[in-house]
């Protein structure tokens, strides 16, 4: 946090702009189904994770999400993400052929920390809208926590945690990237 607090307003605004443009570009790449290009935005040590959420009382709300190491909805390393992309390109991935029509909305972007190793921690709200075939319509809203790492002139995604608002997933699958 120290690093972030010592930055002047102008530097913070420049960093914010860079982060925002990176996230918008990533969303566009996903919606245009340029998945190989999307993979190139990720670091080799990425962890892409979406825990399971359940309804709990306020008193037990610390148990709302499963922890890392327990069951999850996504729990992927780079190899597994490559496998998901290879699957979609295989020519017989029926859940995405005909392809889903998706639109990613990223908002409420906040840089919340710059870690010791330089990773920029960004929290955003996310809305992924999907429709497919005649009448399948899904809408997932949630919060993302991303760790972005500088790589030369670019940023790369080093870690992504996705916290959906749904507990029981109200769709037939989760065959898209968040």
């Amino acid at each position, binding site marked *: 946090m120290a690093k972030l607090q010592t930055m002047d307003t102008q530097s913070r605004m420049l960093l914010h702009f860079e982060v925002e443009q990176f996230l918008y570009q990533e969303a566009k790449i996903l919606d245009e189904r340029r998945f190989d290009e999307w993979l190139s935005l990720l670091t080799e040590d990425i962890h892409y994770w979406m825990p399971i959420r359940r*309804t709990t009382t306020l008193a037990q709300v610390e148990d709302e999400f499963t922890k890392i*190491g327990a069951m999850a909805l996504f729990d992927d390393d780079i190899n597994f993400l490559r496998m998901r992309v290879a699957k979609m390109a295989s020519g*017989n991935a029926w859940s995405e052929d005909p392809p889903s029509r998706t639109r990613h909305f990223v908002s409420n972007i906040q840089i919340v920390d710059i870690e010791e190793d330089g990773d920029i921690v960004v929290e955003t709200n996310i809305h992924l809208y999907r429709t497919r075939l005649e009448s399948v319509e899904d809408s997932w809203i949630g919060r993302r926590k991303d760790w972005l790492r500088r790589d030369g002139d670019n940023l790369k995604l080093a870690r992504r945690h996705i916290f959906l608002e749904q507990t029981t997933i109200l*769709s037939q699958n989760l065959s898209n990237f968040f």
Partner: protein
Amino acid sequence: MLDSRPEVIARDSWVDVNKGTVDRRIFSDLAIYQQELKRIFARGWNFICHETQIAEPGRFFQSYIGEDQVIAVRDRSNTVQVLLNSCPHRGNTVCRSDQGKTRSFFCSYHGWNFDLDGKLVGVPGYEDYYREKLKKEDLGLAKAARVQSYKGFVFASLDPQAPDLEDYLGWVGMVGLNLIAEIGDMEVIDGIQKNRIQCNWKLAVDNLYDWYHPKVSHGSAVRAGMINEQGLQYMNQMVMLGEYGHGIGGAAITEENLAKLSDTLEKGQEPDQIDKAKVWRTTEKAANAMGPLGIRCGGHPNIFPNLWVSAAGPPQLCLRIPRGPFETELWWFTFAKKDQTPEERRATVMIANHIFGPSGLLEQDDGENWSHSTRGSVGAVTGERPIDFSMGLGQDKMTHDSESGQSCIETVVNEHAQLWLYRSWEEWMKAEDWPALIKNHSLPPTGKV
């Protein structure tokens, strides 16, 4: 439209066991669905949870019997209770968490409070408003008529006439559960994956026996390198059929394979990766629990009506919970030995998270096949055309092991277990009550099948 008055349901036949066909109206008709809730879900033994999920007094887990919401909870005397989650006063739910720990169940409407065994212990205004005229002892939470565990798996029935759980499961159901229980001292890993598919629950269930579809439906997972092509060669099939609709379909493990594995272990050698997962099968305890045919079972059991035991990879259970004729909820429970090393646990979780569940590389592609099969049952013309389960019908033989009483069909890919599921389903639907079902249900076939 189908005439769905009860007497017509009793008269009509939907499953033609000679042709191997099933009337598609059973996937869309509302009266049939309502009859299923009564005659199949409320009557049968339903998996509720595993004892490790409610290990201490006050721990609870919410589940469903058909569309009836139930709470499994360990009470103060350490007994597992299965309570209907509906306040006797106005019917409101008294528990709104999926799981957790509590001292009592409190109704948020008027404040009635229920002990962990369902007893009504608190009524605001009992003296002032009710003037002590309320039969509190009759107004506890309704309990499941029968609750029993088999090796840690908690089941409940809403029908007091249900036979004992072990009689219900029979050897086929027990082989199914033992595929998990006999691995070791098991627990549920935290996190039940839940999602909804727009399909009739029966089409999700019959798919678990279906070893015809993986090459096509899940071909992309092979091409992506998730599963190897060899894993999809299913010429060596073993089908077991049990009373009341239980069944197992899928790969057989050969006697030679198990003998070779025992030999490897005796010599103190390390088995290969695939055989490692079968080591538990070489113990005498497992052989006794599973029986001579059961011990070779490498396929997919279904405990009728809706509990899939998936144990070819990480041991998992999948419940297919009905949400009306056109919607089904899938709940995945993942199991592991309590004494796994952190590395072993990590491997179990990684594989389980990536095969099934809504983002699983295999399961992603199932939903639309099932929802569109369901949708096709609504059309005036398509709905009138039966669907076909005739693969292998009349071409195979049931072999019987007289000493153990176990029997199986060893053959190529087939649809025997699916047809057995629908045949049994019809018998459940036609039986007025448990005595009628016990009297009139089919015994698994012998000889030519």
